[in-house]
């Protein structure tokens, strides 16, 4: 799966994680900061990880919640797991 496809799926998850309006999520890029730009709470982050595991069928087995500063960091982690 290409990075932009991973990013699109992540945006869907972010929208359902209540991380902002569709306008906000549409503008999300790999540089978007999860905390500073989207204001994700610890529970939003937990949602992001659990939903990502379900959607991509991967496991965040070696990292904790909150260890991803940006959307791009999450994309890279997923990309690594999928490869």
């Amino acid at each position, binding site marked *: 799966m290409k990075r932009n496809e991973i990013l699109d799926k992540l945006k869907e998850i972010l929208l359902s994680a209540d991380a902002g309006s569709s306008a906000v999520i549409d503008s999300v890029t790999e540089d978007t900061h999860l905390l500073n730009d989207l204001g994700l709470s610890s529970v939003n*982050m*937990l949602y992001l990880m659990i939903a990502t595991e379900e959607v991509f069928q991967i496991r965040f087995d070696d990292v904790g919640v909150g260890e991803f500063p940006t959307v791009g960091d999450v994309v890279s982690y997923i990309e690594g797991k999928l490869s």
Partner: protein
Amino acid sequence: MKADTLELYRTYTGDETFNRIKHYETVAQMWEDRAAEYADLTAIADDGKTYTFRQLQEDVAHFRAVLRESGVEQGQRVALLIPNSYDFVKAYLAAVTAGCTAVILPAHLDEKAVYGTSMMFGFTALITAPATENAAALLRQLRPEVTLIGTETASEEASPAAVCAGSDGCTVIMTGGTTGKPKGALLSNTAVLQGVVNSCLGVPGTFEQRYLLVLPLSHVFGLIRNLLASLYSGSTLMICRDNKNMFRDAAMFRPTIMVLVPALADMALTLSKKFGRSMFGDSLKTIICGAANVPQYLVEEYKKAGVDLYPGYGLTESANLVSGNPVPLEKPGSVGLIFPGMEYRIVENELWLKGSNMMDGYVGAQETDAYEDGWFKTGDLVRMDDDGFLYITGRIKEVIVLSTGENISPAELEAKFNDLPFIQDSQVFEDMDENGRHFLSLEVVPRATEAAKLGADAGRIITEALQAVNEKLQPYERVSKIIIRDSDFARTPSMKIVRYKKCQ
């Protein structure tokens, strides 16, 4: 006025459950009695292992011996710095049944904070797990008189439970109180047990359930409503060590009851809808929800899925629950009926409380205006309907309660931002975006003379410095928005900042 709600609660609880509720004077008595009654049932499931009540009782007796062999004496304070685990349960029960007061420290505290709590609470021993041992390094160096005990320490001896009184200290739980300044609420054996009994009221079929623990045991809701209520009721408690695995644990363990903060209940609901299956499994029948405002839609949406979600209201200072709503569909938005025997007053809309579940006071720091005429002033604004159902209408205390149940002390955070030389004053407050989502914001007033020295780049330098402070906070404490003001805050006649109340 004393809450005369016993018969109502009997009706809502149902005779079968209600008649099984026993009263004990001390946690030691409760534990010994329940451990004998449920000896062969599974008490705890943790890290791939299960422990019966009998095994736990034996492990507790051996760890009491460890405490005594380490020089710990009845009446002393013993701190626990242990993440959620079987070892926490073993160490906690050993400490309180040895007649000590267990001081529960959040397991994420760093070494400076651990040292600080030792000064604040005056504990004579600290029990650590392998994962938290390093956080005791500074304490070991600066206060060698505090005995350090590892959870893995064993003894071949088994030591009997101590004989103590209901009025003896049992547990200290850290709280921000009404001002947010860290301190401990000292709960007696009587208070803790009343909190446990209150847990069983209004919830039919409380006994012999399967609980999945996802809340921290350093929080009163996790410790009393989850752990102790589970042990008291002969239930099995499965300990979820990492919340990102909670649904995998749930799929395996199939909990029948969960104790959740609203944000977690909401998250599970959203995920269940997204993936078309019940994330907590099909055995779940009951959710106890509290520690923050419970939106009515959670009650209604869970009901559609066959799960009864009961909102409740409680405080660390009241050993958890003050009230519970056994009929949330009939009384939407209410936190329920005040538990039997509690005394309450509503003074200028603020709830004041007395009762056997109330703390014996704060330790570590005092709040001079926490009490008036012997009544504990909750800082919560309420109204009560004609049927005695309580509604929270606002709060006058400064502390911000996030939907995750975590308490934020604005003053504590502001002090950290105010440490920057070019910040004169700041205000941390709960803000809301156009979608109604709540988040933390920071507004600062720069110190004009210092800011001037920064030249044309002042705005950028100040913002970066504030962000650097922000990054060092606990994740849940961090602000999501920073505004640099060009004028002072509105002030009261006594020059205190007028606090924003954007979300009330």
